[in-house]
């Protein structure tokens, strides 16, 4: 593979072909992230302003939150950042297989974070009665954490597309149709696994860790379990790669730009975790 031959020749931090000496994709991403800082700054300050003032129909917020769940989500997102950094590192060295593994790990961790958020929102709406319009707290909380969740979802989609991109054959043979099938299977597995996971959690909450919980889970979510299992087999099948691919060290800038976005989502959550969740317990 030509990209492997060039390993060590590319300077990943400087680009002497641009006037700034910075790769254009990286420069664009930093400019975008700077503007996104202001966007989240406005959302966080709106939430804090309404929390500092007494507003009508304010719920019991400490009773509402689950610190265990939020701490777990935070840990998962931090670890996904580690995997993303390792994916960038592997790609810069031209290690395609390692890059794929790290990207898959980041995708899985991102999906776990999203599942936790779906569970949290569903719990708030159905059991605590907190909706977007029930109180000012509901409005600002859902807008802020929901916007962050959308950023995570976009990041997961980008990761999946990059993972599929890493299978582009070097010999120029057609791969677009296979890529669409790959994407469709990913989408199917994502939806089915989140549904199965939430079904499992609800069954355990209802019946405890008993055989009845397993029976209820299998009875209610059989289709989701089957689709997840078949989809995972499909992903393993589509992920087999013996041919040379047109993906390597030269694509490190693409993976790095995506990594910058993913780390940004992580740092926004670092702020939200303290400002929205931890400060409520004081």
């Amino acid at each position, binding site marked *: 593979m030509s990209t492997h031959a060039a390993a060590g020749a590319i300077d990943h931090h400087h680009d002497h072909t641009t006037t700034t000496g910075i790769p254009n994709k990286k*420069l664009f991403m930093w400019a975008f992230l700077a503007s996104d*800082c202001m966007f989240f700054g406005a959302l966080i300050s709106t939430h804090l302003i309404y929390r*500092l003032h007494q507003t009508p129909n304010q719920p019991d917020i400490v009773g509402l939150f689950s610190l265990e769940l939020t701490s777990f989500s935070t840990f998962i997102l931090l670890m996904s950042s580690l995997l993303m950094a390792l994916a960038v590192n592997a790609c810069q*060295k031209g290690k395609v297989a390692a890059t794929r593994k790290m990207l898959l790990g980041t995708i899985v961790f991102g999906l776990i974070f999203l599942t936790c958020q779906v569970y949290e929102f569903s719990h708030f709406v159905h059991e605590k009665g907190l909706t977007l319009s029930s109180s000012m707290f509901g409005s600002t909380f859902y807008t802020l954490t929901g916007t962050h969740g959308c950023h995570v979802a976009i990041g997961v989609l980008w990761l999946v597309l990059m993972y599929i991109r890493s299978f582009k054959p070097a010999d120029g043979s057609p791969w677009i149709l296979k890529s669409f099938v790959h994407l469709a299977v990913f989408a199917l597995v994502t939806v089915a696994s989140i549904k199965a996971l939430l079904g499992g959690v609800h069954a355990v909450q209802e019946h405890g860790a008993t055989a009845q919980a397993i029976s209820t889970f299998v009875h209610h979510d059989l289709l989701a379990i089957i689709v997840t299992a078949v989809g995972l087999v499909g992903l393993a099948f589509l992920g087999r790669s013996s041919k040379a691919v047109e993906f390597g060290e030269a694509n490190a800038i693409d993976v790095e730009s995506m990594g910058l976005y993913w780390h940004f989502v992580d740092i926004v959550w*670092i*702020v939200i975790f303290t400002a929205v969740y931890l400060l409520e317990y*004081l």
Partner: protein
Amino acid sequence: MSASTHSAVDASGHGHHEASKFHIFVQLAMILAVITGVEIVLIYIPLAKWLIVTSLVTLSLVKFMLVIFIFMHLKWDKLFCTILFFIGLILAGGTVAALLALFHVEDAKPLTTEDTASIDYVVRSA
């Protein structure tokens, strides 16, 4: 001859740098997890509220800076990237501080149901 030696040294140096980066990333992830644990424990410690709030904000800031400088490679990239990002960050921080200060004044507090009832009474009387 000297050119090839030079490139061999460069390549080994580059390899060593990349290998150490792997360890830096793993160590950083562990540090971030520990800081998060400390933050969670901190809210249960019976200390003055201002002290806990200051500690939480400081710890979050430390996590934030560690991620942007190491995971996001700002430490190894050109200074211009840092300047560009900090322009947005300072504008965002300034907006948060200004909005919090603006809405902290007495007149900015939202009206309660009793307030609106008394205003209605005054308007009707007039």
